[in-house]
């Protein structure tokens, strides 16, 4: 599904290298987790994959189903099936949540040359999906993320994911700022979307999210590269011993 090889990235504005040769191969239907200490480059990886400005790729490549991701505009990546659930979802005053989502869904469909979703179809689908995530009609009407609580913002990201039906989902610290109940709800939403054609890359600091979203593989990222890959037990190891040991091991 997603193949990242030898990816080197630095900030455009200053000569600061952030990713120093990331290699990842994500198969369809799998859930991969990336863990790592602050500043290891996890969020940068998610931004570079989704096409945010401000980063310069100096070497390496990233392909989604064989298509060169780095050569595409952010909207083209989205239409190709890439989705990033933001760590800090952005507020857009005055734009209704539902308007935003419908515009997004139909923009992607147009880019893919598909017919647009009618207002009726869209409404039926969003209502059903919102209900599963305990998002009420009022929250759908409110402006995008404006005045949403931390939990509401994250659930809203998952709702967008459910509506856009991407193939490759990146969740950037979706558990940050969530209480246990909210985290469970978000995890349920993610688990409901798991199937053999959809791949997840879950970025997190903590093992606890992985109790609810069971990963197939866990990668440890430090100082701009993947330093260790293992099964779910690797996450437990980090939880118990911290990163220091792993980092030391490598040194």
């Amino acid at each position, binding site marked *: 599904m997603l193949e990242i090889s030898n990816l080197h990235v630095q900030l455009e504005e200053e000569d600061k290298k952030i990713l120093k040769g990331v290699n990842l191969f994500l198969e369809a239907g799998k859930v991969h987790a990336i863990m790592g200490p602050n500043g290891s480059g996890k969020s940068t990886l998610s931004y570079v994959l989704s096409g945010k400005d401000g980063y310069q790729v100096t070497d390496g490549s990233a392909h989604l189903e064989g298509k060169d991701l780095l050569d595409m505009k952010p909207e083209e990546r*989205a*239409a190709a099936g890439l989705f990033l659930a933001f760590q800090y979802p*952005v507020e857009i005053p*005055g734009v209704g949540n*539902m308007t935003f989502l419908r515009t997004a869904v139909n923009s*992607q469909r147009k880019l893919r040359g598909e017919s647009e979703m009618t207002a009726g179809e869209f409404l039926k689908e969003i209502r059903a999906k919102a209900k599963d995530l305990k998002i009420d009609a009022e929250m759908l009407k409110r402006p995008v993320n404006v005045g949403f609580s931390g939990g509401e913002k994250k659930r809203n990201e998952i709702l967008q994911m459910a509506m856009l039906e991407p193939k490759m989902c990146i969740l950037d610290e979706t558990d940050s700022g969530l209480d246990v109940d909210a985290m469970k709800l978000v995890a349920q939403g993610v688990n409901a979307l798991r199937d053999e054609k959809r791949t997840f890359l879950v970025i997190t600091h903590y093992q606890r999210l992985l109790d609810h979203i069971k990963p197939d593989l866990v990668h440890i990222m430090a100082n701009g590269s993947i330093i260790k890959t293992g099964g779910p037990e690797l996450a437990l190891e980090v939880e118990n011993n911290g990163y220091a040991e792993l980092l030391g091991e490598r040194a």
Partner: protein
Amino acid sequence: MDNVLVKDGVDAETVEAVKVLSGTYKYGWDTDIEMEYAPKGLSEDIVRLISSKNDEPEWMLDWRLAAYRRWLNLKVPEWAMVDYPKIDFQDQYYYARPKSMEKKPESLDDVDPKLLETYKKLGIPLKEQALLAGVEAPEGERKVAVDAVFDSVSVGTTFQKELMEAGVIFCSISEAIKDHPELIRKYLGTVVPVSDNYYATLNSAVFSDGSFVYIPPGVRCPMELSTYFRINAENTGQFERTLIIADKDSYVSYLEGCTAPKRDVAQLHAAVVELVLLDDAEIKYSTVQNWFPGDENGKGGIYNFVTKRADCRGKRSKVMWTQVETGSAVTWKYPSCILRGSESQGEFYSIAIANNMQQADTGTKMIHLGKNTKSRIVSKGISAGKAQNTYRGLVSMHPKAKHSRNYTQCDSLLIGDKCGAHTVPYIEVKNNSSRVEHEATTSKVDDDQLFYCRSRGMGEEDAVALVVNGFCKEVLQALPMEFAMEAQQLVAISLEGSVG
């Protein structure tokens, strides 16, 4: 819920419309039609000529001549934050009418097909049907009456008969001067006096046509009224005059639209609009101003110097100005409210967009004279390219305006780093029981917002349109539905090329 759904659909259609309309200014074409011009330049003879073309009574000509003589001694106002070459008032035509309009057509069927075709192309069919701007009325049977003004003359007014049955007079002002002299003499120039300002005085001397509305006591106008202004002729100024009188306990919603062809040489437009409101009357006046803004280098475009004012003479009367200003090379416009009657209310909702080399200096004046009067100002200024956008507003609480209130919210949005936004609020309070609130913000279109939209699949310009429409939401919501759609599309179109 239903209401929200309609708005929801509107936004989606906006984005769609942006894609379909890939050109920039879509009304930039002209109509090839045989015209009759008054000689170039301005003199007493020209004023006499305009008056005689309109077959006016003596008192009207005297009124015009007095204005002309006053104008000769006035100086061009220079306090606004706009910069443009000096206008040569002798190098303009002050009167241009299609030859076919020499004899006013008896009915719309007799109007020159070329003119009908022009309005059809603009999306303003001059047929009596429930459509405006090619947009299907959401409530099914919604009718809009249109007065169509082409250069210096009104070519036709629809639904006059049906309106007359309700007692509503809707006609061109040239007809009103002949047919309803008692109303004209009683009200014309009483809101914007001849002596008001340079451009209002000029307008008083040379206005050639415009619209007239009278709503009798207790009548709720059965349909929306609108005037569509089109400048077509070259080197010709348009000077129109609109007078709306809402008698006691009446209501009317009036829409105004304007476009002009793309031309290399700037053209002058100086209009005067007067609204009179008696006890318990209400007027909603909405404008979508889409004059040619000039090209991206600032060549051509309309110089728009407009005086609009409402006089809330009656108790509990209420006026609402809503404007979407996207066009014109230079805009100088301050629709104002005189809140004379006690408990009268004035509202001003404005979106002003300036892109490329456009300059806009616009705002409002809320003059509180009566007690317990209320006003509300919501201004959204958007600047892109190298444009300069100024909000200029006055809130004045007079000594007798006890317990009056004003709320002003003034937001500016910048796109790119070569444009400017300026806010110039003047506040005068001469009593101690009134309250004035002013809030102002300036922000840039946030890269994070754009990236968020794009990561969900929207193109860059669609993303800007969505964010800007969100920024303008409060004002867009104040517009009648048909105009809200048009305005949303306009917002998107006028910002084309502002990113990337």
